[in-house]
């Protein structure tokens, strides 16, 4: 079982460059999320999606865009990378409340993408 797969795993960018991080899940989850993790900060939500074709802003959305054209994929874009976006990015997915109800289904996380912006 692949679960949640993130590509690439590592990337170094120069300030002003653009790139897209890809997240793919094979669990038929409705909900998908992008978080960033910085030292001593825990994880912070960037954007999320509750279904194909829908996206919404999280806690720290500035400088990022997302798209969910297919249910299994959630893309995170950086249009003009800045050093402040150096971080580890995690994608996660989960069942919707309609499917999971009150069950104890957690969010499932990918292995992360380590992004450095010089």
């Amino acid at each position, binding site marked *: 079982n692949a679960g949640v797969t993130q590509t690439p795993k590592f990337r170094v960018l120069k300030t002003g460059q653009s790139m897209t991080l890809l997240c793919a899940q094979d669990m038929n989850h409705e909900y998908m*999320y992008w978080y960033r993790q910085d030292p001593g*900060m*825990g*994880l912070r*939500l960037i954007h*999320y999606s509750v279904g194909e074709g829908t996206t919404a802003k999280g806690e720290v959305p500035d400088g990022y865009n997302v798209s969910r054209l297919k249910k299994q994929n959630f893309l995170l874009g950086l249009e003009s990378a800045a050093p402040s976006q150096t971080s580890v990015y995690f994608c996660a997915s989960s069942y919707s409340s309609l499917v999971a109800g009150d069950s*104890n*289904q957690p969010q499932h996380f990918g*292995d992360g993408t380590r992004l450095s912006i010089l």
Partner: protein
Amino acid sequence: ELKVEQNPLFLSMQEGKNYTIYCNYSTTSDRLYWYRQDPGKSLESLFVLLSNGAVKQEGRLMASLDTKARLSTLHITAAVHDLSATYFCAVDQRRGGADGLTFGKGTHLIIQP
């Protein structure tokens, strides 16, 4: 705004000892989660706590939830080195979990022989 606070943020303890990590959150929430993260790795789900008074145990770890106090605890019994990791608690921002999770800053746990 939902806030989640963990303490301690750093804990060094000896094998065989017991200790508790605390997680406070600021507003009513649906579910509380505990995750484990090893250095350079992903987050592994440990527990999902759904209701007041919920208690779950897995090996040397036990988690509990008091929704009235907005407090969850992660208790470690007779710690072993393999439990060294960073532990996060997280809370649903909205009922059903659609809006994502708010995480605490994590507790970095080192267990020494």
